[in-house]
C-alpha cells in the first residue's frame, strides 16, 4: 500500500480546520471537562461529615451533655435541632430536615454507671453516604465513650493493675492514609476523572467524526480520490488525540496548581502511557462508528459505554467487591487499566516497574486497535 505524506498532510489539515471551525463542539470539548472538574471539586463530597442531626436529651445531665459533645466534636454530626421526643425526631427525618437523630433517655448518668446505659441513634436510611459514615461513626464514638467511663471508674475504684487504668486503651491503633493523608476527596477523584474525561473525548470524537462523514456523503467523495483508507483513518484520529492530550494537560494543570492535588510521579511516563490509552480509546470509537448507522445512534451507544465505564472500571466504585462476571466486563474496557496507571503515577508516585502489567495490556489493546483499523479500512463503500 502506497503512502503519501502530501496526502496525509492534506487530510490532517482538513480535519483540524473542521474541528477548529466548529466552534460550538470545540467549546464543549473544552468546557465540559472543566465543568466536570469544578463540579467534582466543589460539589462532590465522598467523605460525608456534618450530618444535620436532631438531639433529644431527656436527661440533661453532665454525662449526657458530654456524650453529645463527643458526637458533635467528632465532626460527623452537626447538631442542628433540639427536640422533645422520638416522634419529633422521626418526623424531622421524614421530611428531610435532619439526617440523623440522637435520643438520650432519662437518667442517663445513673443508668450508665449501673451498666445499663443506652442511647438510640436514628439514621436516615434513604441516603447511602450519610448512613455509611454515620453508622460507623456512631458505633465507634459510643464505644470509645463507654470505655473511657470504664477506665475512669476502675481508676476511681483503685484497682491495682496500672496497665488497665492508664487512662486509655492499651493498644492504640494508629491509621495513616498513604498518599492522601488529609483524605482530600479530589485526590481520590481527580486521576480517575482525568482518565474518564479523556476516554469520553476520544471515543466520542472518533466515533462521531467517522459517522458524520459517512452521513454527509463526503466519505464517498473522498473515497473516489487516491487517498488511502489508512491515511484517512490516521488523519481522523490524530486531531482527536491532540484535543484529548490538550484537555488532559489543562485539567492536570488546574488540578495541581489550583486544587493542589499532588503529582508524585513522572510526567513523561504519564504522557507516553496516555498516548497508548488514547489509541485504545480510539479503537473503541472506530468500532462504534462501524456498527452504527447514524450520528444519533453513535452518540447513544457512546453514552451507554460511558456509563458502563464509569461504573465498572474502578473509577468510583471498587472492583474488588464485584462478582466475577462484572469484573470480566470491566477487564475489557481499557479505562480500567489506565485508571490504575494514572493513580499509580499521580497519587502513588510509582515507576514503570510497578505498572508494567497494566501497561502491557494497554499495548496489546493498542495493537489490536491498529490491526482492526487496518482491517476496517475499506476502499469501498460496502
Amino acid at each position, binding site marked *: 500500500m502506497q503512502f503519501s505524506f502530501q496526502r496525509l498532510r492534506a487530510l490532517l489539515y482538513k480535519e483540524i480546520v473542521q474541528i477548529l471551525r*466548529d466552534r460550538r463542539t470545540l467549546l464543549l470539548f473544552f468546557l465540559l471537562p472543566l465543568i466536570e472538574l469544578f463540579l467534582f471539586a466543589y460539589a462532590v463530597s465522598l467523605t460525608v461529615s456534618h450530618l444535620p442531626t436532631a438531639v433529644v436529651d431527656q436527661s440533661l445531665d453532665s454525662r449526657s451533655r458530654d456524650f453529645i459533645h463527643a458526637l458533635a466534636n467528632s465532626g460527623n454530626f452537626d447538631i442542628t435541632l433540639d427536640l422533645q421526643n422520638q416522634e419529633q425526631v422521626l418526623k424531622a427525618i421524614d421530611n428531610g430536615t435532619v439526617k440523623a437523630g440522637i435520643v438520650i433517655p432519662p437518667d442517663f448518668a445513673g443508668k450508665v454507671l449501673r451498666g445499663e446505659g443506652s442511647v438510640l441513634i436514628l439514621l436516615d436510611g434513604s441516603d447511602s453516604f450519610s448512613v455509611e459514615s454515620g453508622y460507623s461513626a456512631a458505633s465507634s464514638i459510643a464505644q470509645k465513650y463507654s470505655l473511657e467511663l470504664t477506665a475512669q471508674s476502675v481508676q476511681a475504684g483503685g484497682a491495682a493493675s496500672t496497665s488497665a487504668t492508664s487512662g486509655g486503651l492499651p493498644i492504640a491503633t494508629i491509621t495513616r492514609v498513604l498518599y492522601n493523608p488529609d483524605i482530600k476527596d479530589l485526590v481520590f477523584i481527580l486521576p480517575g476523572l482525568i482518565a474518564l474525561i479523556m476516554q469520553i473525548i476520544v471515543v466520542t470524537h472518533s466515533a462521531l467524526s467517522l459517522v458524520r462523514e459517512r452521513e454527509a456523503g463526503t466519505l464517498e*467523495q473522498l473515497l473516489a480520490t487516491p487517498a488511502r483508507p489508512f491515511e484517512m483513518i490516521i488523519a481522523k484520529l490524530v486531531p482527536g488525540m491532540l484535543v484529548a492530550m490538550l484537555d488532559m494537560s489543562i485539567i492536570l494543570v488546574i488540578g495541581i496548581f489550583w486544587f493542589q492535588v499532588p503529582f508524585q510521579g513522572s510526567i513523561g511516563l504519564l504522557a507516553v502511557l496516555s498516548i497508548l490509552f488514547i489509541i485504545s480509546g480510539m479503537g473503541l470509537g472506530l468500532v462504534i462508528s462501524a456498527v452504527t448507522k447514524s450520528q444519533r445512534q453513535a452518540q447513544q451507544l457512546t453514552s451507554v459505554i460511558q456509563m458502563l465505564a464509569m461504573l465498572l472500571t474502578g473509577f468510583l466504585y471498587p472492583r474488588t467487591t464485584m462478582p466475577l462476571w462484572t469484573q470480566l466486563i470491566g477487564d475489557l474496557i481499557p479505562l480500567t487499566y489506565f485508571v490504575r496507571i494514572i493513580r499509580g503515577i499521580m497519587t502513588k508516585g510509582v515507576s514503570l516497574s510497578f505498572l508494567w502489567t497494566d501497561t502491557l495490556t494497554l499495548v496489546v489493546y493498542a495493537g489490536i486497535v491498529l490491526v482492526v483499523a487496518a482491517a476496517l479500512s475499506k476502499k*469501498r463503500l460496502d
Partner: protein
Amino acid sequence: MTTTNEIAISAQGLVKRFKGRGGAVTVLEDITLEVKRGETFGLIGPDGAGKSTTTRVILGLLRRDGGRSSVLGHDSMRDVYMIRAESGYIAQQFALPADLTVMENMRFFADLHGIPAKRQKGRIAELLKFAGLTEFTSRPAGRLSGGMKKKLALACSLIHEPQVVLLDEPTLGVDPVSRREFWNLLGNLRAERGLTIFVCTPYMDEAERCNQVGLIYKGRLIARDTPAGIKKMVPGRLLEFKPAQFETARKIVAGLTGVLQVQTYGAMLHPFVDDLELRRKEIEQALTAQGITWSGMRAIQPRMEEAFINLVTRQEEAENG
C-alpha cells in the same frame, strides 16, 4: 475493431447484489456498455433503477458481484488506485467539506492527487477562472449557492486533469442557467482535451446531447444507442394536440385502433400511432363525433422524454404480462 486504448469505460455482464432483510437482492443484472474516448455517455432511467449503483461499481466504490468492468483499461476491483488517479467523480450526494473555503477545498483535492505545490498555484487559478469562482476563494464551501457548489465540485474533480469524468446527477436541483453553464464548461473540456464523460442524469435534454444513451430499468439496460437510435425504437409516429375536455378525449383516443400509446404532457395529449395520416383523421373524426373540440393537432418528433416514457411503460407492461 476499436483497440483497447480507445475505450475509456467498459462493462460486461455486470452484476451487483445487495444483502437485504429477506435475502440477497439483485440490483444490477447483466449490464454491458462501452464508452469510447472523447464520447459522452448518458445513463438515464427511473428512480432506483440502478444508475448510481452502476457508476459506483464501475469506479470500484462498490464491490462487483459478477461480470467485468474497467476504466481506461484498469479493472474496477483490482486496479482501483489507478482509476482514482486518472478519473474524476462527482457523487450524487456530493458534499465537499463545508467548513473549508473554496481555495482550501481546491488545495485539499490537489494535495490528495499528489500535485506538486509549484504546479498547484497555476492549475488552481486556471480552474477557478474556468468555473467562475475566482472571487469566492475565501468563502466556506457550505455557504455557496447550489450552482456554485456544483461548479466547485467539478473543479475539484478535474484538478488532476483526468481523462474520464463520471458524474452522478451533477445538475440536480440547479437552476437552468447554472445548468447550462455547467454543461458549457464540460463541453469545452471535451472539445479541447477529448474528455470522456459518463453522466447519470434525470434531465432528458442532457441525454439528448450525449453520443450514447443507456436506458436502465430495474437493474437492466433495456436500451443502448445514440439518442436518435433510441427515439427510433419507439414504435409509431407521434401526434400532439390540445383537447377541450382532457379526460374524455384521452379515453376516447386511447381506445381507438392504431393508437399504440397515449402520453400526457401538461394539457396536451401525445398519442403514438402506427399510420400518421390515417390515424390522425380517425382521431379527429372520433373527437368531433363526441363534440370535443381541440387545437394545435400536428405531428412532432418524439423527444428523449417521450421515448423514455414509452420504452419504460412498454417494459412494465411486458413484465406484468
